[in-house]
């Protein structure tokens, strides 16, 4: 149901970007809100069922990620009233959901060690941060397209539809400012949880290392932005690059590099 409404909303947003009619946007927007609503119910149900945040398999993690992006978008929509952003966000979230739906169910009983509020806090904050970073990434892509249009003096239909450079840059900025503390808090709660569950704060697990790398890159970007006054193209490129690392951390480190964060070990009862 959530996927269906989300797809509908994505379709609506794509039509909106072509047709540029306000009522299409309004409809798509409310359909998206409905999608978000269903998704929330679904996640709540899963939470109740598993007794912990439904993020232990790749399937449910993707679904949760998609939810976080939607959540971040809706907050931003409230703040910036930027219609065209939806045309980028909705399809992206829909894509994640499709992948998530396509993956097979593979869930055994949950290891009791995961039934902890710390896990929920850890995953919740990290994913919220990731959601904001995803939007920062999308805004950066839009920024680069628009910047190219203006620099090359090719003012086609995309130029008219995309928002101003200043708006895109400030969305990017806003997402970083709020995403970064969330990521930080997520990592801290993660380590507290590790102490509580595994008896050590840090154990050089591949995912931990990659998270740290991601964190450092985002810290660098934020630092450059705040002190040196980086903005525009460079900042956009950097935030795209950072997001690529983030994706690798999220998917690559969990799937290929192993360690206790990997979905394989998360799913099995014998891990740890």
């Amino acid at each position, binding site marked *: 149901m959530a996927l269906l409404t989300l797809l509908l909303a994505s379709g609506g947003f794509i039509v909106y970007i072509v047709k540029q*009619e306000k009522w299409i946007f309004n409809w798509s927007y409310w359909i998206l809100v409905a999608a978000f609503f269903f998704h929330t119910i679904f996640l709540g149900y899963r939470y109740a069922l598993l007794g912990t945040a439904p993020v232990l398999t790749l399937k449910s993690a993707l679904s949760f990620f998609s939810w976080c992006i939607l959540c971040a978008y809706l907050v931003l929509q409230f703040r910036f009233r930027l219609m065209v952003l939806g045309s980028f966000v909705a399809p992206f979230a829909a894509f994640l959901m499709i992948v998530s739906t396509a993956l097979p169910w593979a869930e055994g009983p949950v290891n009791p060690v995961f039934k902890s509020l710390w896990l929920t806090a850890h995953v919740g904050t990290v994913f919220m941060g990731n959601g904001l970073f995803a939007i920062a990434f999308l805004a950066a892509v839009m920024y680069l397209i*628009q910047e190219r249009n*203006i*620099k090359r*003096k090719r*003012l086609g239909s995309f*130029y*008219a539809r995309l*928002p*101003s*450079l*200043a*708006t895109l840059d400030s969305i990017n900025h806003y997402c970083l400012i709020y995403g970064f503390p969330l990521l930080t808090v997520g990592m801290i709660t993660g380590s507290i949880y590790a102490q509580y569950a595994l008896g050590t704060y840090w154990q050089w697990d591949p995912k931990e290392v990659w998270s740290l790398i991601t964190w450092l890159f985002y810290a660098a970007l934020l630092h450059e932005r705040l002190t*040196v*006054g*980086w*903005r*525009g*193209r*460079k900042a956009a490129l950097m935030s795209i690059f950072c997001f690529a690392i983030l994706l690798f951390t999220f998917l690559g480190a969990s799937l290929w590099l192993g360690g206790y964060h990997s979905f394989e070990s998360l799913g099995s009862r014998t891990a740890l």
Partner: protein
Amino acid sequence: MMKIITIGMNHETAPVQMRECLATEPDNTLKALKAMRELDCIREAIFLSTCNRVEALFITERETEAKTAVIQLMSELGDMAQDDFLSYLYTLEDLEAVQHVFRVASSLDSMVVGEPQILGQIKEAYSEATRQKTSGVILNRLMHRSFHVAKRVRTETDICEAAVSVSYAAVELAKKIFYDLQGKKVLLVGAGDMAELAARHLMRQGVASMVVANRTFERAVQVAEAFKAQPVSFEEVEGQFLDVDIVITSTASPDYVVTHEQVKQALRKRRNRPLFFIDIAVPRDVQPEVNDLDNVYVYDIDDLKGVVQLNKAQRIQEAVKAERIVQEEVSKFARWLKTLSVVPTIVSLRDKMESIIQVELRKSRSSLAGLTPEEIEAVQTLTRSVAEKLLNDPIVYLKRMADRKTANTYIDMAKKLFSLDEEEDAE
């Protein structure tokens, strides 16, 4: 036969001196409406007077008389001899007039096609006419339809979107870079008509402050006064790059006034806040390589002209769409106008029904004497609803036939069937 007529002059048919004569007096509209209200031959009237057009729109049954009267009125208002301005006038009738009104309202007939002010001006003229009670059934409908057409044209086409002048295009670009021009600072280097026009457009968008530089400082002071800006000497220009956001250059200098190196230096100090150069000068004032710097955008006169060209082409395309919408609405309005021809018949049909009811009720008064007032009321309601039900089908049928060529046959038939003519003759 009722006719819709519009008589007027616009920017195409009359030179500005002519239009001025009619448009200068602010209460001309009021005078004209009052005068037209006094005229017997004019049923309804609206008077529109803007800087680009003066028009009288009216409904009349006595065509020639009304036309002469309106032209007479206009010549008096403008204090011009009739012979002088007769050749500048256009007169349109019926559907052509309707089409004209629709086109004017949706800004297809404006000097700058797509400019949005005209609709407001028409609304103003219409509300004046309603205040003076010179507008009636037909013009009310016509006006409301024209607002509707204007809205359709605005939402269904992109005619209003595109900037078609160089200075306006520059403003649009600035908005795509900075989003909000509120609080931004502009530097004007050199002076010229086009540069000043661009500056004026920017000021209107809420630009906070402006700095003017010129080779001759006196000239800078002069221009600065006109804009309430701050004059600076030519040597200070480079330092200004640190605070300003938009730079408009239009000097006569044969060399580049703004170089790559200068801007690069400034950028670091201004923490990469975007900088937008609008170079209107020929030969160019801004070194083209400046555009390669991040967060700096340079548009020279050719680039801007390119934008305008693109927009103009787009506008022509959109105008075709808009004309189709106007055509559609004109034929809708024509259909409505035709239904007016059956209105008198329907009215007399209803009158006849009403009088029959009254007569019959009077006849039965004695036999109904024993009833309570409530019961009498019930009987009346009953009678009326039977009569109305009976008349409903013929009326609907007449309305449907109203836009056929043979409408008159049906009207005659209805009159004969219900012997309406005799009724009228008898009165």
